[in-house]
């Protein structure tokens, strides 16, 4: 061994310290705010750092708003799950098609298409959604186009379909590129072998390509769906209160007087919700990297 034991560990030190202070510690603050109280005058959140003084009353009430009494948080949660599921599915189907074509059939256009596919990463998300906001105005081009077909103007902003498509629009690049990476690396010969053994093109796809791209599909789904759970801005720009998502609950609570502990509780609940798919994803990637 050329290296002393601590050599490589020391490389990770700056990053680990940074994460410890600015990623792990804030969680403790969130706990302290969620289980804390508010100041009597302006009702700003007053965190309680000593666990023996933590009060779980607000957390309990917040949790109950999901299933008990008026269940006012139940609809936003359900809506979020539905929107995320639908949007992720659309991202998968559409993204897979595009990635597949680009990887396997693009030929001489491949470079250009790749550049265009990467473009959303450097065109700001805001600008892209804002561009859509303009197009979807009552006097915007979408309605103008509809007018050409004799359709009267529709109010697009505020509808669930607009929000879901907005989510797709914003996040699909994160699906396409990992999928492309995977599909691009699938050995041509494997497919030819399948063909030689008598499979048609669809069967080859189903029995060779699809299983091989499973890790890519999984990675893409996780990268796309997890951030969507915390999305509130798509709804703010393209939706309305009827389409509000979990992220909007947090965003409103952070701004309102006296709702600091509630905001903290909502954040904790969200962390718990995304923890399960996250851990599953981390375990599966660890397995694949260890296999590599």
């Amino acid at each position, binding site marked *: 061994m050329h290296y002393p034991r601590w050599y490589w560990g020391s490389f990770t030190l700056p990053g680990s310290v940074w994460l410890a202070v600015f990623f792990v510690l804030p969680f403790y603050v969130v706990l302290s705010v969620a289980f804390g109280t508010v100041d*009597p005058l302006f009702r700003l959140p007053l965190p*309680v750092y000593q666990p023996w003084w933590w009060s779980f009353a607000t957390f309990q009430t917040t949790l109950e708003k999901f299933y008990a009494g008026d269940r006012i948080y139940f609809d936003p949660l359900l809506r979020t799950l539905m929107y995320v599921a639908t949007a992720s599915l659309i991202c998968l189907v559409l993204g897979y098609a595009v990635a597949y074509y680009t990887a396997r059939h693009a030929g001489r256009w491949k470079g250009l298409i790749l550049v265009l596919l990467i473009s959303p990463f450097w065109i700001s998300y805001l600008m892209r959604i804002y561009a859509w906001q303009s197009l979807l105005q009552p006097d915007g081009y979408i309605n103008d186009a509809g007018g050409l077909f004799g359709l009267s103007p529709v109010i697009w902003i505020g509808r669930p379909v607009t929000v879901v498509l907005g989510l797709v629009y914003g996040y699909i690049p994160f699906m396409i590129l990992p999928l492309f990476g995977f599909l691009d690396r699938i050995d041509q010969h494997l497919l030819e072998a399948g063909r030689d053994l008598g499979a048609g093109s669809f069967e080859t796809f189903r029995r060779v390509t699809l299983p091989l791209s499973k890790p890519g599909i999984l990675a893409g789904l996780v990268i796309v769906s997890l951030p969507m759970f915390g999305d509130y801005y798509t709804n703010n720009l393209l939706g309305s*209160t009827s389409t509000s998502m979990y992220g909007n609950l947090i965003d409103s609570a952070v701004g309102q*007087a006296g709702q600091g502990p509630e905001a903290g509780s909502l954040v904790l609940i969200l962390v718990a919700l995304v923890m399960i798919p996250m851990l599953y994803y981390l375990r599966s990637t660890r397995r694949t990297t260890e296999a590599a």
Partner: protein
Amino acid sequence: MSGHPRERRTGLSRREFLRRSIGAAAVLPSASAILAACSKPGTDAGGNGGETGSNERVLARPDNPVTLPMKGDPIPTDTPIESGPLRVYNWDAYFYKKVLKEFEDEYGVTVEWTTFNNMEEGIQKLVAGQVQADVFFPTTDYVSRLVDGNLLQPLNHELIPNLEANYWKVFSDPGPYYDLGWRYTVPYVIYTTGVAYRRDRIDDAAAAAAGYELFFDPQFQDAVSYYDSYRDALGMMLLRDGVTDANSDDPAAITAAKDAILQMINDNGARLTINGTYAKLPEGEFSVAQAWSGDIVGAKWFLPKGTPEDVLGYWYPPDKKGLVGNDTIVIPADAPSPRLAHEFLNFFLDEHWGYINFADWNGYQPPMTSIVPDRLVEEGVVPESLSLAVLGEENFTLGYLQGELSAEADALWLGAWSEIQAGG
């Protein structure tokens, strides 16, 4: 202790005191605060509960006006004018940039403009010390709390002669009910909250007959806008139900108001907006919109070319028994340039600049004696069709003013509001 207005005594809790008194040392305040916190945060050293503090507060009401305690002395009249910059903390797009520019030129300073998107956010950042401002524009319901929190400094009246010279008497003598003797505030603009509509889709008589019911008229489905602001939103529905206490703490009344709003959204496709009145109504996207009077007056600048001004209408109870309110301008206790801030206040209270701000920019009327309805219509500032959007002094005696809510009432209002925001 000297009681100088710049000294921020918190009086909140021992932990807060420790944290603030140990200066800017990086990790030390939090460590010592944690170690030394023998009392639970949110309580005072005696261990008394924090919530009881708010129950002892006197809530200012028109029939129960309040003289705010003097927290320190105003700056002396001969304080030299600072070199700036002047830090203004206000709503977005609420002040005419041209007037700011004139101020900058006259005093040779720069004006830095920080905005907040809603009053709660503005207060939070100011109270937490995250924004430093020379001039702040709170709504009246926060004035008393800001004073109690030692966050405002008393005004030197000698430096602001324009208030008594130009403004309605009620604001200087005896002073507004929330600040008798105008110790800390000058008024910014006043407004009523009514119902704006398109006169090319509804005629005035029908609108006057329907009043608040316009929001529920299926004829205007998907074309109704309502304010994304909990006091205005719930307040108007309370009025519609006949509850004249604009600061009600009656849970049943608040629930009824909330249900009315949800019904309006779910059954009639109404949308919560902030720009619905001044921007979207003139563009035709909405037919009916809850409106602050300033918004509908300012809407004319958003009319598409060729649309006449009189397409905009405004309904308000003719007996003037509707929602009315005003904003204030205050100087925070730790303002870096308080003398300059006083100049700014006086500058704005000047007849000419205050008028320009209103007439040429935001449409919100300052309570100036020289602004009378006839003058406004004559000079084309307000079309005849919007005459109900102009205020007179009687609005303040007859209308329903929204003031500070008690903590319990506010919790009820906010609870109802978060249910509306969650989509119902």
